[in-house]
């Protein structure tokens, strides 16, 4: 399997993941992952903890380097440049530029606590894309209104509830106008009554046609929003397909066992 060059990918895949392996020391976390995500689709990744789903998500924007295989987003290799038969590791500056096309939402929000909500949202457009501050502020205000937090622009993250913080984090990721959004268990750190408000924002984005990959434990959300559900266990993709198949008529025994525990 050869890695694509920018012009060589004729498919409509937004994300291509090919035979990706990743180890942390002696522990092999990803053992050969192949996955395609089409533009405009929502892919939900399910699986028990330790199955490698968060690591897979983190390799897509090169927060983790892969040991083997390759990943491309929108026809461009992530973290490497291909020349002939060699993959050259990109410089940090180039990796950072690639990441501006990929939004990432963390389980623990990771908002910058010393900056206000508005400053959190405008930081990357100004620092990474060189947008004029005035434009960045105008765009940020629109995004904050979209996640229902227009009046919190001047607040500091610690003054917000967990659900509000995660909505700010989503607005912050959207401020770069990414082609792809990655969510790493976006509701796992939230009190149960705050989960709904965050899922509503993600659903709204899904309806708007944003390509996204969501790692989550919310089966109901997967059933309602996902175009494709991917079930992972022990570093491999066990089963994937439309939610109606994977969630209601799973073929694999391991998928059935997992679903019987969480449903």
């Amino acid at each position, binding site marked *: 399997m050869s890695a694509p060059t920018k012009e060589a990918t004729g498919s409509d895949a937004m994300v291509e993941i090919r035979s990706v392996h990743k180890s942390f020391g002696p522990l092999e976390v990803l053992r050969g992952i192949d996955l395609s995500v089409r533009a405009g689709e929502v892919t939900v990744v399910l699986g028990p903890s330790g199955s490698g789903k968060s690591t897979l998500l983190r390799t897509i924007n090169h927060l983790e380097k892969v040991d083997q295989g390759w990943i491309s987003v929108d026809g461009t290799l992530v973290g490497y440049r291909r020349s002939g038969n060699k993959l050259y590791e990109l410089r940090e500056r180039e990796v950072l530029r690639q990441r501006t096309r990929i939004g990432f939402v*963390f389980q623990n929000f990771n908002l910058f606590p010393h900056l206000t909500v508005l400053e959190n949202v405008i930081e*990357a457009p100004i*620092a990474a894309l060189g947008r004029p501050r005035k434009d960045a502020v105008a765009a940020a205000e629109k995004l904050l209104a979209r996640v229902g937090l227009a009046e919190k622009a001047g607040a500091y993250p610690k003054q917000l509830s967990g659900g509000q913080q995660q909505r700010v984090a989503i607005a912050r990721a959207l401020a*770069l106008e990414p082609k792809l959004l990655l969510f790493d268990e976006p509701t796992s750190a939230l009190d149960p009554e705050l989960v709904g408000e965050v899922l509503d924002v993600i659903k709204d984005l899904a309806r708007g046609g944003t390509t996204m990959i969501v790692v989550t434990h919310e089966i109901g959300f997967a059933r309602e929003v996902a175009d494709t559900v991917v079930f992972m266990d022990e570093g491999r993709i066990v089963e994937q397909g439309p939610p109606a198949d994977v969630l209601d008529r799973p073929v694999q025994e391991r998928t059935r066992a997992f679903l019987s525990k969480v449903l």
Partner: protein
Amino acid sequence: MSLTSDPPIHPPAPTEPGEKPAADEYAALKVVPVRHPWRWVAVAATAVLLAQFLNGLITNPGWEWDVFARFVTTETILHAVWVTLQLTFYGTVIGFALGIVLAFMRLSASPFLRGVSYAYIWAFRSIPLIVQLLFWFNLAYLYKELQFGIPFGPGFVAFDTMNLVGAMSAAVLGLALHQAAYAAEIVRGGVLAVDGGQLEAAAALGIPRLRQLRRIVLPQAMRSILPNAANEIISLFKGTSIVSVMAIGELFYQVQVVYGRNGRVVPLLMVATVWYILLTTVLSVLQHYVERHYAKGAVR
């Protein structure tokens, strides 16, 4: 009395036998705080000792407050205070600038840079400041001439060490290099105290590396750096008195010179003491305001 943590819905107030208040009387019950007689004894004893000390300050003629008042703002002393402040300023600025470099070297991915930084910190924390100062003071004995040029190759400019490294610059150099070792560890501690998710979020947003440090990491690291840094600056400020061994006219040296002439040791030591206390207080007040600035967003 039950040991479960769930409080009963209507706490039954224990009553003296024979007494039986009606349910609505509970609201009217008075709370009597517990008495602390021994605390009052401790307060009285401490107050007596304090009064004795203050009385001594005023009545003991040995303090010679008139001599103190005559010298505390003389030009010699004011100039000496100025020299002390200069030593503190340059020691702090150069020390922390070098300390920041050393801290990031120790956090670097290169084992060589980490090793050099570690060795520096190890060496300069091991050598007593006074020993190190005397080394710098005697630098001319080791290197007669300092040259700028290509390493191991020809030089372009040469300076006579004796002229370049005078007493004052030897003192600044010694204080700064000593300070850098401590500053490096303080800065490194501050950077390590910042949650790793912060750098990860900044990296995921594509924020350039230097801006990640300047805008995201350092402002947050400042919260744990500041209290330690203030400690260091204050102890450096007082530590400048050590350079009196190099006959530099800073506060402590000058006070020694004066009491060597007039023999009024105690009031002149008080002159130095009062200046040290006064300026340390100013530094503490500054610390409070700087810390408040960096506490933005830290409280609800």
